[in-house]
């Protein structure tokens, strides 16, 4: 279980429902590791700054994380966390490994503007 204050996605169904019912969704799929924690923290801060975006996390080791690991956009990813941005149910951006607040903000400006 991830120790963050973000809402956790615990199943494939939950993720599908979330992206079907919300225009803008960002999911950080990782572990409680050094590259992942900064991204969760940034998501926690951005929840307040961007109330129109649904920020979530997902445990990389849960079997249901296959829904993210199996995305074509993640095929060449070799670094945690996998961070996926969905708009209107579709993946519009995916990043691998640690991201700074500036990098996350830049993706948000690019895909959710």
């Amino acid at each position, binding site marked *: 279980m991830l*120790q963050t204050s973000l809402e956790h996605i615990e199943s494939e169904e939950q993720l599908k429902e979330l992206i079907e019912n919300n225009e803008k969704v960002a999911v950080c799929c*990782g*572990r*409680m*590791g*050094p*590259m*992942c*924690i*900064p991204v969760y*923290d*940034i998501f*926690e*801060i*951005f929840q307040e*700054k961007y109330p129109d975006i649904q920020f979530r996390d997902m445990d990389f080791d849960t079997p249901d994380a296959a829904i993210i690991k199996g995305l074509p956009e993640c095929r*060449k*990813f*070799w*670094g*945690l966390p996998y961070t996926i941005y969905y708009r209107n149910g579709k993946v519009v951006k995916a*990043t*691998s*490994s*640690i991201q*700074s*607040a*500036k990098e996350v*903000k830049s993706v948000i400006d690019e895909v959710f503007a």
Partner: protein
Amino acid sequence: MIAMSKNIKKYDVIIIGAGPAGLASAIYTSRAALSTLVIDESSAGGQVKTTHQVANYPGFVEPIAGHELAGNMRKQAENYGTKFKLAADITAFHLSDQEKWVELDDKEKFTTEFVIIATGSSPRLLNIPGEKDYKGSGVSYCATCDGEFYKDKDIFVIGGGNSAMEESLLLLQFVKSITVIHQFDELQAEKITANKVTTNPKVNILWSHEPRAFYKKENKMVVEAEYLKTNQRIRLERDGIFIFVGLVPNSTFLKNVPIQLTEYGYIITGPQMETNIRGVYAAGDIRDKRHRQITIAVGDGTIAALEVIKRKLNELSRL
């Protein structure tokens, strides 16, 4: 905190950097009833939040997760009234003996009498072609996070210091082989750790080489490395690259400020943490000193805060 106008607010003290030094300062200044603002371009916790386990911080019998320790420090400061502006961009600022202000995200401006700079240090990047492009898809900075992606693979480790060798030991649990690329003829890491790596049959070392570029060839990562003694370049292929080349002080934002820095970019302070600018202090890993530890950062932050409190009290007593 005094609201000066719609977008300008005044705090007694502004702390730039929310790692252990900055948070220790904030706990002290807030408890002394000074209005305190902590600013950080990322989240709170500094390097501690990304440390797996902290085993040498007094008061914890069992090791504590770094993110938990960092979270506790932040909550402690918040409980005493510290305000935070996190994931914030400092878009302009001014630090002089007479005037100190910080502008965030081009919209909010904060003025103060005292500034404590506690921006710490960050892992050094090589800043060579390909490094950013392949981050997370061939280039990594964390063995515990990404080591398992390279199970039975051949990899490069760039660096020869303590972190490079400690991370190599972790990686050896997963990988088929490691080629260490190091700029010198000997490793800088502590002998005991270095020996464990160098005596492992899965390890090969490329001495006196520096990477100049990374690129991808089909599924392999290619390193173009220069032999420093002849400037000859070679190209080698492996499955991935792990980079551990030390830390750099987060002081580039100070380049146009008349604050005294060492040639490596660390801030020079006196024993009470004051810089050459009156009312501006530095604490933690950003400060020029021999040792860098969480406990020392916390000590620096405490000293800086106590100095600020003392000066504020002196000011008030003169009124």
